[in-house]
């Protein structure tokens, strides 16, 4: 095996192309091409309009209680058309065209003089460069495919719930397109929060499950924390550069590179970073993503694996001209990414729920992407986003197919040998492809993209540590990925159905059968007799195969990159605002173990992957009880007990946040409520209100009904007035007289 690895490394390192070096050298301070307005591209507005129309149609379907698959058809058609439009533009422009802006309509746009700092311009307009197109291609493409998949997957919900689901998907595509195509940060913020909304609605799709509701809320609120960072970043950018439009900003950044900046300028990337970390589930704000698996699986595949969570990567790649001015910020991004990757991988190793394992793997892979951004290869990061979108969507969709077939069963302890179960063959083998790609098996797309990131990290002495962390994480990744596959798809056939209880919107539906709670989720499940898995049909299988093909093809640019040829992903990144980080450093002198970075990563990466798979093979297929024994052994030893406990409990991060934020906030809120009711309202307001009453009490004896009392008061008042008047006169004229 070692021999094979070294052979591989040898063959791969033969040609780290010189052309790449030259290209990179020219990229280092390449200017960002100024965007030109191109009104003729206004038809790109349809990319936004189509999901919007689809959303409206879905809402109408819900309102009119359409029971057939019309919402799915609308959505698939709309998203497919959007994809076609994006593709058309890409084919028309090619990967290397200069950025253009397309003004659609004025949005938040006002001024008090015009020009920077004298106006605020945030319009609904598009900034289309190759980075936009790269993202849009896989967003709309995968969106279409996953919508198609969901049209079958969500069948059981037909009725308002079905329409609601596709409404959410359409809203998501609308917001994501706006996010990616925005020409200013505020429209990006619109998309940013819009995808959060879609995520909220879709995570909470099964709203009758309290856990789903809680997960949706958690996702939205944690994203809001990040959004606040993004908002502060936007304000800081406006204060410092006077505009929020990308075109003008990039020029301003170029100027600023020569100028001096205040302390608040260097704060900007950190604020944006907070937003990115929230959206992409990175270290301080990652705990929402595993919980988000409460949503339907296509949602997990589309939003929480392939597209939405990469918005953070997109943001930083888009703002690369700013980040490249602030090396500290870049380093922070890299370190956060690496630590998240490691942490999530350790948690992923100890989870039993397939979707949760994949969720942690998503976090972990996102960590790699941020690491790539941090160490300076936006190309690597973008490429990893691209490959990851395919193989992770594939993994989730296979998990969804399993879940769909086994009534919601996702516990890998209760599933085994699926590849031999009739109808699950395609699922099993496509899942194997996904697992191989995720664990960066040599010559898979995941291998190439991860390679790019790690090589860049290893090349720089500053970031070499990150490279080692990444390699270690790669081993863990291979282990936990194949732990799933060996458990679920390999081995003897054995399974138990889950207790899936989908919420139904249709009141007529639950009018008849809710005495036996939850077993009508699949009307055709034969509850009384033996359980029959419900094999996926055409839509699911074809989508799986298509995405699988996409995942395989996604490796082509990687091969090209290795051979030093220009590949289209790199070309696209290098023609965007991320131009300065579009290449990969190719340090040829040895950095460790006498190997240059490339060879080092190839050898150790391959080793990590194969090692992880081997361990998984051993303890999860060949000797399955070994895993339990290992766990028991670790638990029984006082010194190592913390390891499995913490990993299974996700390092207690949720509990930590609860103790640090939610609990104090809860206590403070109650205190403040008490304070508000009893101090401000009770003591101050009502107390003040009682002063006249008390004064009245003081004088009440005068008003006991006796006429003289009233008269006396009246006379007293008269005397006071008279005395005052007389005294005034005395004071005013007495001296003169």
């Amino acid at each position, binding site marked *: 095996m070692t021999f094979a690895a070294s052979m591989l490394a040898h063959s791969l390192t033969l040609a780290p192309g010189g052309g790449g070096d030259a290209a990179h050298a020219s990229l280092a301070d390449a200017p960002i091409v100024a965007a030109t307005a191109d009104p003729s591209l206004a038809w790109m507005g349809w990319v936004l309009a189509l999901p919007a129309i689809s959303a409206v149609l879905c809402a109408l379907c819900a309102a009119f209680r359409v029971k057939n698959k019309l919402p799915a058809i609308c959505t698939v058609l709309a998203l497919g058309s959007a994809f076609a439009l994006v593709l058309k533009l890409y084919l028309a422009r090619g990967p290397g065209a200069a950025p253009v802006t397309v003004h659609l309509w004025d949005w938040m746009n006002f001024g008090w003089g015009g020009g920077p700092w004298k106006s605020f311009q945030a319009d609904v307009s598009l900034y289309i460069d190759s980075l936009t197109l790269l993202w849009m291609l896989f967003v709309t493409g995968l969106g279409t495919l996953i919508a198609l998949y969901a049209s079958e997957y969500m069948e059981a919900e037909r009725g308002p719930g079905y329409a609601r689901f596709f409404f959410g998907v359409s809203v998501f595509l609308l917001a994501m397109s706006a996010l990616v195509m925005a020409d200013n940060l505020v429209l990006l913020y619109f998309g940013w929060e819009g995808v959060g909304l879609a995520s909220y609605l879709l995570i909470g799709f099964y709203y009758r499950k309290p856990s789903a509701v809680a997960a949706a809320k958690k996702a939205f609120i944690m994203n809001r924390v990040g959004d606040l960072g993004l908002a502060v970043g936007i304000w800081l950018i406006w204060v410092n550069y006077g505009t929020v439009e990308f075109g003008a900003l990039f020029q301003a950044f170029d100027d600023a590179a020569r100028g001096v900046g205040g302390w608040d300028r260097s704060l900007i990337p950190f604020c944006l970073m907070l937003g990115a970390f929230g959206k992409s589930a990175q270290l301080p704000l990652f705990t929402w993503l595993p919980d988000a698996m409460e949503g339907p699986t296509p949602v997990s595949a589309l939003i929480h694996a392939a597209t939405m969570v990469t918005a953070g990567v997109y943001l930083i790649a888009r703002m690369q001209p700013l980040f490249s001015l602030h090396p500290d910020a870049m380093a922070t991004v890299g370190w956060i990414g690496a630590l998240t990757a490691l942490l999530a991988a350790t948690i992923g190793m100890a989870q039993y729920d397939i979707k949760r394992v994949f969720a942690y793997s998503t976090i972990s892979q996102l960590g790699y992407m941020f690491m790539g951004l941090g160490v300076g290869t936006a190309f690597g990061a973008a490429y990893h986003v691209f490959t990851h979108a395919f193989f992770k969507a594939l993994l989730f969709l296979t998990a969804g197919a399993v879940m769909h077939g086994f009534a919601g069963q996702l516990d890998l302890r209760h599933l085994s040998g699926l590849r031999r179960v009739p109808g699950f063959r395609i699922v099993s083998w496509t899942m194997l492809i996904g697992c191989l790609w995720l664990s960066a098996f040599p010559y898979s797309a995941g291998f190439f993209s991860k390679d790019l990131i790690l090589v860049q990290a290893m090349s720089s002495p500053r970031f070499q540590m990150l490279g080692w962390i990444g390699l270690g994480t790669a081993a863990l990744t291979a282990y936990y990925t194949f732990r799933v596959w060996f458990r679920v798809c390999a081995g003897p056939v054995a399974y138990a159905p889950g207790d899936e209880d989908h919420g139904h919107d249709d009141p007529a539906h639950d009018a008849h059968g809710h005495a036996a709670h939850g077993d009508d989720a699949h009307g055709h499940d034969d509850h009384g007799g033996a359980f029959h898995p419900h094999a996926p049909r055409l839509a699911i299988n074809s989508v799986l195969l298509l995405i699988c093909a996409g995942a395989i093809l996604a490796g082509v640019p990687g091969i090209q990159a290795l051979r030093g040829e220009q590949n289209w992903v790199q070309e696209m990144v290098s023609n965007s605002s991320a131009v300065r980080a579009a290449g990969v450093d190719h340090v040829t002198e040895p950095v460790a173990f006498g190997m240059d970075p490339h060879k080092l990563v190839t050898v150790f990466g391959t080793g990590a992957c194969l090692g992880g798979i081997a361990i998984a093979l051993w303890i999860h297929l060949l000797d399955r009880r070994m895993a339990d024994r290992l766990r028991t052994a670790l638990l029984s030893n006082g010194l190592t007990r913390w390891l499995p406990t913490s990993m299974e409990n996700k390092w207690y991060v949720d509990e930590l946040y609860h103790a640090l934020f939610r609990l104090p906030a809860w206590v403070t809120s109650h205190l403040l409520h008490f304070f508000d009711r009893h101090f401000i309202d009770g003591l101050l307001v009502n107390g003040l209100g009682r002063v006249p009453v008390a004064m009245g009490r003081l004088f009440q004896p005068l008003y006991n009904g006796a006429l003289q009392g009233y008269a006396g008061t009246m*006379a007293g008042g008269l005397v006071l007035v008279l005395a005052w008047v007389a005294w005034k006169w005395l004071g005013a004229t007495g001296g003169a007289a």
Partner: protein
Amino acid sequence: MSPTPTFMNAPLMPWYIAAAIGAAGLLMVLRPGRAAMRRAGAVIGLAGFGLLLAESLKLAGPADQSISTPFMMAFAAVGVIGAVRVVTHPRPVFAAIYFILTVLAAAATFLVLDAEFLAFALIIVYAGAILITYLFVLMLAHQSPEDEIGHIGAEDYDRVPREPFVAVLLGFFLLASLGSAIERGPELARENAAAATARLAERKAEAAKSMPRLTVALPEGSNPSDAVSNVQMVGLDLVAKYPASLELAGVVLLMAMFGAVVLARRQIELGEDERRKAAGMGGMVLDVPEHERGGA
């Protein structure tokens, strides 16, 4: 004099002292029983009033030939004595009679102040009509002229004053403030006597012109306006200057008459059934509280 006078160095200090003495006297008079004490109080009170007068005369201008100061002072003393008796007398009827004394004294001062018509009108209307009504009502109300102890006709609530100290204190402050007002108030007018006299002459001439009949019998060479009497002036004022007020006064009297008639009618006590019948509500049950049903 200090430009910012305080209470203590105010020029009215003697006035305050006099008022305090008068108040103390009144307080002593007000305490029931102890005839000697009350007499002493009367003396002190009068002394206080005298001091008041003396103090104000010090501030006043020269004597006016047409107003006799001694007479004025005598009538004032009589009026004040009457008033004090109104306030202190234990028997209401006598109090009312003392009030007539005060009215008479006031009428006398009116005479001295050249308001002849008002002087007689006061006697006729007040002493003749209003006070007689009061007396009538008092007598109507008091059916027990004498009790065993010998306080003739004096109910407890007539003998025992209510919170005399507070009342007198209040009165003292009122009088003190009024003193300041009397002293300072006219300054606002800032008009000398000559101007006033001139205006009177002018008005009299005007009145004379409007009343040519009265000037026929005048001796040769005399000013026709000298013959214009006080009555004529007041009359002219009423009809020429305040006709609307005069009408309103008439309306007020009319309404008062109506009111008195209505109140008197209510005194015919009907039984509940009769009242219902009268109101046309024979069958209805009225929820009238017990004490509302009349004292019959």
